[in-house]
């Protein structure tokens, strides 16, 4: 008996040489990000933030999109303000669970950098050193410079926010000098006028970002500036820097420059055209969720509405937008209440979160009233940390004290109106009642137009689209009918969908798929497939039948 080999669809029995042609197709699809979050700062981050705006001097466009994978990195970058405070809810939406794997930040603003200038012109030599702040638009301020501080603090000589520098006499060689570059550590004040981190401005000591070696010649200082990584992380030498003669300094140069120099002249202008520019540039940025910073009475504004159009019509892959609704019971119904906002968006890609919360203030008996924006950030972070097929329903958040605890009747209204909210569940605590979006056509799990009121189902659908496109594009586009035949494409899609089908061991996006079809039309393939999403289980109805003790024996 000869060995039987199945080759090219045939059972080969006879000895011989056999050949076939196959496309070089990688049938192991790569998974892509499922929960990256984007924040567009259209004014909330004013006076803080880092890098350049979308229309910046030192960087612009996609170079002004900054990505962070940890809370510490994000906070170091923005250094203070509302975004600093909000980030914790995105990265740590609940104790012990994963939050957003990556947060991208972009400022919808036109920015110019602040500068620090040293004029060494006391002698015949020397020159002028001009330093730009890489974090554009932000100026250095002492406590008495900071306009947000109401009490005047006289003669503060330390940088509390932004950047500054101080030229000092040499320690090793007292005929030389060195310059220390500082960054302020004050985090700013919240809406109640309290510091975000509890530390008042005079308690916030500046940190030294960089320290030059001792020098008495501008050329030596410039050599250090050109190579020092700590300096260049925050600062950049301006092209207008000039050296006169030999560059040697005299004592008069030190006398003229030995006081604290604050970075000045930076500007940040948030404009509607800057926001438009952001939308024009971020179409292919890799993110799944976008957290709107305009909540409550601002929720129905132009930027959120433009953003809704962008994420549903213009972005390469559809995204999900989280918007804070009303803060408390007064903003539940009525104009700009949570119900009104949900009805306004009416989209499977927009999620409105109702109610702010109360936050304990450390070491005091006080509570801070936080807006619904924090709720939206928390839900956004929580879902970003979950796989697409994992429903947010009955998932707990770090927020425990709600400003508006909905009654059972209000919860029913909220579910029917597309308002995401929380409820208390015995044995679990406060949880997301049901992870729903704002689509008003919400009596069926799947609508005829392939939309759903369940966030997880919409995430699955969009994730399938994203992964198929990103996997297939580099493999098939640009090939020919032989190297990428309809059979190859069909095999790839089937392979991908098989990989994404849930088993008892591995949860996944879909329960099953069928009818994968690839039809050649001119120079393209028309591919179709059916799938059943791994949709959530929201209700269980139990009916017990009571039997008569005498008859059931």
């Amino acid at each position, binding site marked *: 008996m000869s060995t039987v080999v199945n080759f090219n669809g045939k059972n080969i029995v006879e000895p011989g040489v056999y050949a076939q042609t196959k496309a070089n197709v990688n049938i192991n699809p790569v998974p892509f990000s499922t929960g990256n979050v984007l924040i567009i700062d259209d004014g909330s981050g004013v006076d803080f933030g880092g890098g350049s705006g979308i229309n910046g001097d030192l960087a612009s466009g996609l170079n002004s999109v900054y990505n962070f994978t940890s809370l510490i990195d994000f906070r170091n970058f923005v250094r203070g303000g509302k975004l600093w405070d909000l980030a914790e809810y995105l990265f740590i939406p609940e104790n012990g669970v994963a939050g957003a794997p990556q947060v991208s930040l972009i400022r919808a603003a036109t920015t110019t950098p602040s500068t620090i200038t040293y004029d060494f012109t006391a002698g015949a030599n020397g020159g002028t050193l001009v330093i730009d702040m890489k974090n554009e638009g932000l100026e250095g301020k002492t406590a008495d410079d900071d306009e947000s501080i109401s009490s005047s603090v006289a003669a503060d000589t330390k940088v509390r926010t932004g950047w500054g520098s101080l030229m000092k006499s040499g320690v090793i060689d007292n005929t030389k000098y060195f310059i220390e570059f500082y960054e302020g550590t004050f985090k700013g004040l919240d809406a109640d006028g309290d510091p975000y981190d509890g530390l008042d401005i005079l308690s916030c000591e500046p940190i030294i970002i960089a320290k030059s070696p001792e020098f008495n010649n501008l050329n030596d200082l410039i050599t250090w500036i050109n190579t020092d990584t700590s300096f260049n992380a925050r600062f950049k030498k301006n092209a207008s820097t000039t050296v006169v003669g030999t560059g040697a300094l005299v004592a008069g140069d030190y006398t003229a420059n030995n006081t604290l120099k604050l970075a000045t002249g930076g500007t940040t202008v948030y404009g509607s055209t800057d926001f438009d520019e952001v939308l024009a540039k971020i179409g292919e940025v890799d993110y799944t969720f976008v957290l709107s910073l305009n909540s409550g009475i601002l929720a129905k*504004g*132009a930027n959120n*509405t433009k953003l*809704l159009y962008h994420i549903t*019509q213009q972005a390469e892959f559809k995204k999900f937008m989280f918007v804070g609704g009303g803060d408390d019971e007064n903003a539940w119904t009525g104009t700009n209440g949570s119900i009104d906002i949900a009805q306004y968006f009416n989209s499977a890609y927009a999620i409105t979160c109702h109610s702010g919360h109360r936050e304990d203030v450390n070491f005091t008996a006080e509570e801070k009233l936080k807006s619904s924006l924090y709720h939206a950030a928390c839900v956004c972070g929580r879902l970003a940390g979950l796989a697409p097929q994992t429903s947010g329903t009955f998932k707990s958040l770090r927020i425990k004290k709600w400003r508006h605890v909905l009654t059972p009747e209000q919860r029913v209204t909220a579910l029917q109106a597309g308002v995401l909210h929380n409820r208390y569940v015995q044995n679990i605590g406060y949880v997301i009642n049901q992870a729903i979006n704002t689509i008003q056509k919400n009596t069926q799990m799947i609508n005829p137009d392939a939309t759903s009121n369940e966030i997880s189902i919409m995430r699955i659908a969009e994730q399938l689209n994203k992964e198929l496109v990103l996997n297939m594009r580099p493999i098939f586009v640009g090939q020919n009918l032989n190297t990428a035949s309809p059979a190859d494409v069909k095999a790839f899609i089937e392979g991908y969908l098989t990989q994404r089908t849930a088993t008892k061991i591995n949860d996944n996006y879909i329960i099953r798929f069928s009818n994968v079809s690839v039809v050649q039309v001119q120079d393209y393939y028309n591919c179709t497939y059916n799938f059943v999403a791994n949709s959530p289980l929201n209700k269980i109805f139990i009916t017990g039948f009571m039997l008569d003790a005498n008859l059931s024996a």
Partner: protein
Amino acid sequence: MNIEQFTQRNGFTQRDAFAACRMYKGQDRSFGEWNEILKKDFTFNSPNIISSVPVETKIENTKIKENTIEPAKTTEKVKLVKKSQTKKT
């Protein structure tokens, strides 16, 4: 003028038209009022002489334009009459 009419006539992008129409659905305002309300959030065509006048005036302008064409038609008729007269003679 409703918001749909305003966005159609003033060069709104599809995205901005969508946003403006959703924000101001059902409202009726003059051209000047829409211009004032929308200019802070949207970029659209700068008002020119024709578009900056009220709608009623535009309609009047159109009527005037139509009227100015009529004399030319009259001239044409006169020419035809002359031809027919020539034939008769």
